[in-house]
C-alpha cells in the first residue's frame, strides 16, 4: 500500500489543479466539469450506477467466461494437433486485425437484441488474447522436460496434462488479465449497439443530455470495474499458481 503513496499524492495534486483551472478559467461544466462536480455526480447517481453496473458486469462476465472456455479449448486443440495448428493458427493470428467494433453491428443483425450479441462482442474481444497467450505458453515449454517425460514413458496426453498445461498457466494468466482489462469496455461498447440498461446506456444518455460530469462518473465506474476484474483474475492466479508467486523465499541464502 505504502508503495502507491507517491502516485496517490501526485494524483490528488492533479485533481486539485484541475479543480482550480476549471474554477479560475470559468470553464463551462458541460465542457469540463470540475472533479468536485464529478464526485457529486458519482454520489448522487450511485444507486443508478450500481443498477446499470450489474448488467454491464454480467455481460462482461459471461462474455469473458465464454472466451475463456472457447479460447482454452481452441488453444489446446491447436497445440495438441499439429495439422490444426498449421491450418488454424495463422488464421487466428490474422483475425486479430479484424475490427470487432465494425463486426459488432452485424452481430445484432444476426443474433437480434438481448444478451447474446453483447456477450458475443465481449467474448470476441477477450478471445484472442486468451487463445494466443495460451498457445504461446503451451509452446514455450522446455523441450527437455518433455523429453524427460517421454523417456519416463509418458504419452502425448500425459505430457500435456502434467507439463504443458501447468507450465502455460503464467502465460495464460497474462492473457486473462489483458482480456479482463478490456471486457468491461467491450460490454459498454456492445451496449451502444442497442440495450436498455447498462453503463453504456447510462453513458450515452448522460452524453446526450449534456451531463458531462455524469460521463466522467461513469468513466470512473468503468475503470473501477475493470480494475476490480483484473484484481480478481490476479487473485485467481495467485491461488492457482502459488509456486509462481512464492519464488525465492526459503533457503534464499544458505
Amino acid at each position, binding site marked *: 500500500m505504502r508503495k502507491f503513496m507517491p502516485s496517490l499524492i501526485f494524483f490528488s495534486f492533479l485533481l486539485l489543479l484541475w479543480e482550480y483551472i476549471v474554477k479560475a478559467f470559468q470553464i463551462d461544466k458541460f465542457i469540463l466539469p470540475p472533479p468536485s462536480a464529478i464526485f457529486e455526480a458519482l454520489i448522487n447517481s450511485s444507486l443508478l450506477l450500481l443498477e446499470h453496473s450489474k448488467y454491464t458486469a454480467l455481460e462482461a462476465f459471461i462474455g469473458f467466461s465464454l472466451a475463456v472456455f472457447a479460447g482454452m479449448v481452441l488453444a489446446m486443440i491447436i497445440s495438441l494437433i499439429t495439422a490444426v495448428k498449421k491450418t488454424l493458427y495463422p488464421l487466428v493470428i490474422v483475425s486479430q486485425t479484424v475490427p470487432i467494433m465494425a463486426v459488432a453491428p452485424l452481430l445484432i443483425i444476426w443474433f437480434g437484441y438481448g444478451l447474446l450479441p453483447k456477450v458475443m462482442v465481449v467474448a470476441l474481444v477477450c478471445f484472442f488474447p486468451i487463445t494466443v497467450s495460451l498457445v504461446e505458453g503451451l509452446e514455450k515449454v*522446455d523441450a*527437455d*522436460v518433455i*523429453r*524427460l*517425460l*517421454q*523417456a*519416463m*514413458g*509418458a504419452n502425448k496426453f*500425459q505430457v500435456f496434462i*502434467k*507439463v504443458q498445461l*501447468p*507450465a502455460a*498457466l503464467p502465460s495464460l494468466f497474462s492473457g486473462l488479465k489483458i482480456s479482463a482489462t478490456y471486457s468491461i469496455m467491450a460490454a459498454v461498447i456492445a451496449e451502444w449497439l442497442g440495450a436498455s440498461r447498462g453503463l453504456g446506456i447510462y453513458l450515452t444518455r448522460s452524453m446526450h443530455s449534456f451531463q458531462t460530469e455524469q460521463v466522467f462518473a461513469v468513466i470512473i465506474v468503468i475503470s473501477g470495474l475493470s480494475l476490480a476484474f483484473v484484481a480478481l483474475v490476479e487473485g485467481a492466479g495467485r491461488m492457482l*499458481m*502459488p*509456486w*509462481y508467486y*512464492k*519464488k*525465492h*523465499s*526459503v*533457503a*534464499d541464502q*544458505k
Partner: protein
Amino acid sequence: MSVLSGEVHLRIEELSKEYMIKSKQGYAYQRLPTLENISLEVSRGEFVSIIGPSGCGKSTLFNIISGLEKPDAGKVFLQGRDITGLRGKVAYMLQKDLLLPWRSILDNCILALELQNVTRSKARQQAMDMLRELNLGDFSANYPAQLSGGMRQRVSFVRTMLAGKEVLLLDEPFGALDAYTKSEMHDWLTDSFQKYRPTVLFITHDIEEAILLSDRIYVLTPRPAAIRLQIGVDLPHPRTRDLLVRESFVDIKRVLLKELFN
C-alpha cells in the same frame, strides 16, 4: 570387452546412428554420422562412466538407450530382453534438473510413479521415505525455486531413482555446478548410491569425476563416436577427496588425459 563382475544388466550391441541435417543454405540435406558401431555392457550395480569430446554423440547414445530415438542399426538389451526403441524401461537424468516449478519437491519426486499409475498416497509415502533417508525430508513441501542449484540436482537424483528402474542414465548431472558444489555432490552421491546400489551409466567431461565415481570408464572417439578405450578403476571404496592426489588415481588420470587430448 569383458564383463567385470556379476550378471550383465544392460547390453548395447553395435549401435549406429546417422542424422540428416540441413546444409547452411537450407535446401540440401547432409549426412551426419554420429554413432558408429558402439557395443558396451554394464553389470548389475556397476557404475560406468563415458567420457568423450564435445558433440561426439554421448547424449545421442543415451537417447537411443532410453527409447527417445531409434538407432539405424544395433540393439539395446536390458537383462537380456531387447528393449530397443521402448521407453520407460530405464531412468534418464539430464544436466539441467528439470524439476517442475509448480510441484512441491515431494510431488516432483513422484512424477515417474504417477505415470506408472501408482496411487498418489503410496507414491508420496515412498518418495518421502527416500527424501528422509537422503536428508532432504525438510524440503519436501518447498517449491524447486526455493532451493539452491545443488539441492535441486539432488532432488532430481531422487526423482530418477524413484522411477523404480534399475538402470540409471545420468547425462552430465554435475556439468552446471561450480567446482565446490560439485565436490559436495560427489560425497552425497557416493553415500546415496552405496545405499541403493543402482546400475549406472554416467556421462561426464570431467576426468577426475569419472575416476572418482566409476568402476569402469569408456572413452569415446570424436564424432562419429566409437569406443576408443575402456579402463577399469581399481580404487578402494569409499572414495574420498584424498584419492585425488593419490598415486594410483593420478596414474589413471594420466592415461585418460593422454587418450582424450590428442
